């Protein structure tokens, strides 16, 4: 009986007690974020933005070691399983980029910002919207420079289940319309982005202007140089091909944007009196005021393995990899001498005899300081430690030098070649060695972007130096090119000379500027920064420079091997001579066909949307 009462009492307690507390069951999910939460919390919107910033596209950029070895600036010396990078042709789909997934995500975000965010402050909301639009324009710019005009979709596209998909089939916009879209978007949001002006890793007003400066320059040079071709590359509907008459207007817009940045608070990085080291520090350190917009990394949080891939062989801290990117001789020779002469190295005299140098680094002396900041050449240092780059020794036999390389890297020369020749280094720890893996095959290593932080080249720690999307150096060159094309040569010369002064040239080092010089400046200043492929495309020079000819010094990546002369009793004994080589791992000359100016559109896309026209030659 007692039991029954207790049961009843408990039953009553449970039923009555729980009645009033239904909300007790209404708990916020710990694993889901609702739209209301997301769009009304500045912290959550910022982390969504971080996701989109992280998805900003590049072709050979953002520490893409492999991509950087697919042009004429470098070859692949890493693992043999990727030697196809030294033995490939640009396919029809090379550089294809068609990311409407990201576009849709951004469009959706923009619409949700409008409809669902009610408690954000007006300033916050405007800033976020501007950032979304910046990213979207950036993505469209990346698409148009690779594919030509693409469908301009700025709203979410929803199927209405009517059985008719035609409203979803957006045709391609004209090429110039996409560039105009980028411009008008940047003009519309640059004021709103001013709140970010203290940040270098979120888009700010100057990042918008920098995108404008670059995009307008691309549009202008496409308008100009495409129409100078024997037969301009174009489609009847203008999806590819910008009328020549639009060039000047685009150059003016680009110049105006560049000037707006140059009058801002940005300054060329100049913290190290050693000009070469200064150029390296500019991208390796996160100080100074040169970088406008960057993708940042942090140890323990978000890292990359560019240093692991590319550290000099003898300085590697990990048990695998190193030395993947081997810069080419043609890149090294594009750095001028400080007296303004062409950068061709003086390895032989006019009669074709080797020029002996008493120190191995002597041949690289008096060159543009950016050479030191960009590549590691024989006799130079990294992390304050000397590198050991020497291909072998040269002995004098029958009136000619004969080259001998050691079977092992870092080997000292003993009696292998005879007692007379014994003594000294035979082949350096860092090679170069032909047909070898994980050691330079060209005689050069990359310095730019390779972090010198402790343990940066280990996989455990990895590197945390940042990737510059935009920096002032490029803006100077954009301004110079636009001004030059508009006929304002004095102004253009001024911009180039300022940049060259930072590289160690005397003031006003160029007195007569030419387009060739501007192009060369871009190659050396912006090497490995994901510009060269697109620069040569927009000047319509890619098919001429990378002509696929096996004996062409531009299309073929070559190296320069230094040898120590072993010639006892002769004045040149102990000096160094240099031999130009074609590394045997480099198998096929770079070959850019007219079809590569615009990548082919994927068949799946053409099948789904009959309004999409194909690119020329595809």
């Amino acid at each position, binding site marked *: 009986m007692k039991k029954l009462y207790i049961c009843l009492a408990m039953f009553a307690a449970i039923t009555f007690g729980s009645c009033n507390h239904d909300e007790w069951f209404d708990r916020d999910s710990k694993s889901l974020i609702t739209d209301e939460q997301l769009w009304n919390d500045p912290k959550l919107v910022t982390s969504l933005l971080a996701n989109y910033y992280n998805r900003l596209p590049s072709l050979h950029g953002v520490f893409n070691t492999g991509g950087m070895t697919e042009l004429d600036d470098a070859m692949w010396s890493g693992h043999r399983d990727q030697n196809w990078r030294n033995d490939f042709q640009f396919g029809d789909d090379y550089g294809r980029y068609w990311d409407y997934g990201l576009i849709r995500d951004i469009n959706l975000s923009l619409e949700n910002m409008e409809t669902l965010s009610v408690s954000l402050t007006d300033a916050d909301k405007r800033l976020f919207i501007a950032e979304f639009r910046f990213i979207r324009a950036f993505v469209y710019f990346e698409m148009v420079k690779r594919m030509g005009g693409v469908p301009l979709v700025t709203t979410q596209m929803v199927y209405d289940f009517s059985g008719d998909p035609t409203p979803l089939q957006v045709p391609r916009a004209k090429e110039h319309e996409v560039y105009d879209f980028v411009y008008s978007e940047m003009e519309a949001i640059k004021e709103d982005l001013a709140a970010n002006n203290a940040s270098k890793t979120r888009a700010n007003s100057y990042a918008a202007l920098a995108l404008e400066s670059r995009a307008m320059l691309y549009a202008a040079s496409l308008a100009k140089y495409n129409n100078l071709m024997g*037969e301009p590359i174009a489609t009847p509907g203008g999806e590819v091909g910008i009328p020549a008459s639009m060039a000047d207007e685009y150059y003016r817009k680009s110049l105006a944007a560049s000037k707006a940045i140059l009058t801002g608070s940005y300054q060329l990085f100049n913290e190290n009196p050693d000009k070469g080291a200064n150029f390296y520090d500019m991208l390796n350190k996160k100080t100074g005021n040169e970088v406008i917009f960057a993708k940042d990394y942090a140890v323990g949080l978000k890292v990359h393995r560019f240093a692991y891939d590319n550290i000099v062989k003898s300085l590697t801290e990990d048990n695998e990899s190193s030395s993947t990117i081997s810069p080419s001789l043609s890149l090294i020779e594009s750095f001028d001498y400080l007296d303004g002469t062409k950068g061709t190295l003086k390895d032989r005299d006019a009669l074709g005899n080797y020029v002996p140098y008493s120190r191995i680094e002597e041949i690289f002396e008096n060159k543009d300081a950016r050479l030191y900041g960009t590549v590691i050449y024989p006799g130079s240092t990294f992390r304050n430690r000397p590198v050991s780059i020497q291909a072998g020794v040269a002995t004098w036999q029958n009136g000619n030098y004969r080259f001998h390389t050691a079977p092992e890297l870092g080997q000292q020369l003993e009696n292998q070649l005879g007692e007379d020749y014994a003594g000294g280094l035979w082949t350096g720890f860092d090679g170069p060695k032909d047909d070898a893996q994980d050691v330079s095959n060209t005689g050069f290593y990359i310095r730019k972007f390779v972090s010198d932080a402790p343990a940066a080249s280990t996989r455990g720690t990895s590197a945390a130096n940042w990737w510059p999307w935009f920096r002032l150096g490029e803006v100077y060159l954009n301004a110079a090119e636009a001004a030059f094309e508009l006929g304002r040569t004095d102004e253009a010369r001024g911009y180039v000379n300022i940049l060259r002064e930072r590289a160690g040239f005397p003031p006003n080092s160029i007195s007569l500027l030419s387009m060739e010089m501007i192009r060369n400046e871009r190659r050396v200043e912006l090497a490995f920064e994901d510009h060269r492929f697109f620069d040569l495309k927009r000047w319509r020079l890619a098919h001429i420079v990378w002509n*696929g*000819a*096996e004996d062409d010094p531009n299309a073929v990546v070559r190296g320069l091997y230094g040898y120590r002369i072993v010639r006892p009793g002769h004045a040149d004994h102990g000096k160094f001579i240099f031999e130009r080589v074609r590394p045997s791992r480099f198998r096929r000359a770079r*070959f850019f*066909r007219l*079809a590569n100016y615009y990548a082919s559109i994927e*068949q799946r896309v053409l099948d789904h949307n009959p309004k999409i026209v194909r690119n020329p030659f595809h």
Partner: protein
Amino acid sequence: MKKKITAILTIALGLFVTGCEYDNFEAPRAILSGKVVFDGQPIGVRNNGPELELWQDGYPLRALIPVYINHAGEFSATLFDGQYKLVRKGNSPWLHQSTDTILVDVRGNTTLDVPVVPYFNITNESFQIGGEQIVASFEVQQIVESAQLDQVRIYLRKSMLTDHVVFDQEINVDRGSVELGSETRITAAISENLKSSDYLFVRVGVKSTASGEYCYTPVQKIFLK
């Protein structure tokens, strides 16, 4: 017991044999081969350079079948029997006729000569060796009226496959010296590294501004000694 094993074996064998029919397709066996021709003559191209496209309708997967063309203008593709559409693509030394498809019925081995319209063509070529020089004579014919001449070049190589990408020597013919439709005669020195060989392969190529590819004469073997 014995019966059981036999039964299991029979079933297993049965599955094996029937399974095969479902899993395996017979490999395509019909070979479509032919040449790209103009005026009945094959057009020489860069080896594996220009391509033709084949399409087949009626299947859910719609993807092109690339057909590569060798240096002499010959191609071949191994296919299933059926009806195909053949497209002449751009970036070839001939007119882009992407909408002008050729219907091909493949029934067993099929031969098809694909007519193309090159922008320029070279006829009546001949090569002579005089000392250390090569004398080439040829006529450049303009086929497409609107085409503009871009390059005329002579390619020399020790081995047979030679074009504007692989060559041992390239002789650039000045455009000014080329008169369309009449004989051009070029005398050029053979380069140092080729002089000592017993024979050479040579061909002349012509390129219009509309394309990155050359149209070549057939490869000729010439003896230096």
